[in-house]
């Protein structure tokens, strides 16, 4: 499978503090990469480095071999789609208008009918079609998150007509969603990596370790700005490693063939186990 984005020893510094250091990461088409780590580990910073939003102070991030700084904004927008963490809007846009933001730049060649139909299908895919006419600002947090997911799908699909190697980046996409929609969104992301024509590379930041273990093809553990471990899920799901990174004692068992991660207690190295 082809590599869409690659970080080579990439780092980002704010003042003297390195938020991300020496990150080596590839995002491949057909692979769902999940990044986990405690608060402040640098997960969002890593995503922003990979998206081109932040320029690395160290190393380089490349897209199809080109350093991101040399790729113009419109071309990046065709290759990578971002659903960011905070999605507040300054003005009372309608839900369908927010979804259509996805094609502001990458969908300029589409005609009106194609745009409308694309927005509609994106809304439907995120289960938001019934609220298409609502003022975005009056929606609940979870509904707003689904609108942003629809917007991301809309951009991905519109850009997919001119660019067949794409990455979808999701920064805590399910933080405000109910249980059913959490699974639905991750199912949808997984399906994008599995489709036959132009499978997408997905990078998602998740806090729920069970969902991470369930959905990830490639699991990345971030701790204090460094990648502590990365690889296939079974290799990374190690009690000692996770306890060390998260500071919580965990037990990992399997049920119906799926890993189950249960936090046990606060981990205190001073206390006898």
């Amino acid at each position: 499978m082809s590599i869409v984005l690659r970080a080579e020893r990439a780092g980002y510094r704010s003042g003297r503090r390195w938020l991300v250091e020496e990150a080596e990461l590839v995002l491949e088409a057909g692979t769902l990469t999940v990044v986990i780590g405690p608060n402040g580990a640098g997960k969002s910073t890593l995503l922003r480095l990979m998206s081109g939003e932040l320029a690395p102070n160290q190393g380089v991030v490349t897209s199809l071999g080109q350093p991101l700084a040399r790729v113009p904004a419109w071309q990046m927008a065709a290759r990578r789609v971002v659903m960011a963490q905070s999605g507040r809007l300054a003005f009372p846009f309608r839900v369908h208008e927010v979804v259509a933001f996805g094609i502001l730049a990458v969908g300029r060649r589409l005609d009106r009918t194609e745009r409308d139909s694309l927005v509609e299908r994106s809304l439907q895919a995120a289960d938001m079609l019934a609220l298409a006419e609502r003022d975005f600002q009056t929606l609940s947090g979870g509904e707003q998150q689904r609108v942003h997911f629809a917007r991301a799908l809309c951009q991905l699909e519109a850009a997919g007509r001119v660019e067949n190697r794409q990455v979808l980046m999701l920064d805590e996409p399910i933080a405000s969603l109910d249980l059913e929609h959490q699974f639905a969104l991750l199912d949808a992301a997984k399906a994008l990596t599995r489709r036959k024509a132009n499978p997408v590379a997905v990078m998602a930041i998740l806090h729920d370790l069970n969902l991470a273990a369930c959905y990830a093809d490639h699991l990345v553990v971030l701790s204090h700005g460094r990648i502590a471990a990365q690889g296939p899920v079974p290799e990374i799901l190690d009690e000692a490693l996770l306890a060390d990174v998260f500071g919580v004692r965990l037990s990992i068992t399997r049920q119906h063939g799926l890993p189950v991660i249960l936090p046990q207690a606060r981990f205190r190295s001073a206390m006898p186990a």
Partner: protein
Amino acid sequence: MNGTFLSEPNLRSRDGSGMPGTVASLGAAHGRHVFFWAGTGFSLLAGLFLLSLFKGAITLPPGTLLHTFGRVIQEGSLPDTREALILANIRLPRTLLAMLVGAALAVSGAMLQGLFRNPLADPGLIGVSAGAALAAGLTIVFGDMLLAPVLGKLPFAVLPAGAFVGGLGSTLALYAIATRGGRTSIATMLLAGVALGALSGAISGFLAYLSDDRQLRDLTFWALGSFSGASWAKLLAVAPAMIAVLLLAPFLARGLDALALGEAEAYHLGLPVQRVKAAAILIAAVAVGASVAVAGMIGFVGIVVPHVLRLLLGASHRLLLPFSALGGALLLLGADIIARLVVAPAELPIGILTAAIGAPFFLWLLLGRQARSFE
């Protein structure tokens, strides 16, 4: 709707043709809505335009317009009546100027709000008008002293040029203060705007203290705003810049829409964010500088008009920017007619009127249901 996402979001496989869907029908309904408001707006504007030509300290007989217009067409010169002279040399330029300034102020308000992601941003609020007025004040008080020996009697164009330079200067100063490493911090920019506005106000106050009686009257004119000095010369001095602004602004609509999500998100969507911001700042500075130059400080047009339009037509800048031009022209022309009539034959400075309408409106915005969007 079964309450879940499609399990296979393969958007490609489904055919969007055939029956118009929900989004398409929403678009069509909105289109009719927009058409209705455009029709209403232009009819109102035409009505106010005629009213503005006939009403004032002297009410002209309705036949004057036809008579004057006919003579100009037939003989290429104005009829030598008092009515014709009032109509052609006072009322017409004043009416056009009020419309143009209103349009420019409302459009620059809408653009600055989009740029700052804040519906409360206004050329008055962020110190751009104050900077322009300060430069105008400096020109009034020190212009005679410094420039008269060189230029003789001061040509009129010095004042608009000064105000424009002041408006552009304060906007660029704001931008320089708030921009680090190519990125503009909106919060810093708003607060720096407040500080710059206060500084300009302080210096303007000091100028008032220094100035003689005639200069003081001129300064008061700048502080309160008025169209009473409108003339063809003033109109022609600022019209090209303002018309250029009104024509260029709609090109920024997509960029401003994307900025509503945030700067990073606008970049993610594929827009050249820094270029959009620089263009919006420059265009707004030109519009505000030119407005202050010919009409003084007229506040709140830039807040009231875009806000009402967002309630009527939605937030999309594709509609908001052209409709702001229409709405701003309507509001300021209406306000100018009132300013001429309430204390006739004297007239009220128009800035007093717009502030009297705008300030309670501003408070209502703060207290009202929209408050959450100002966070």
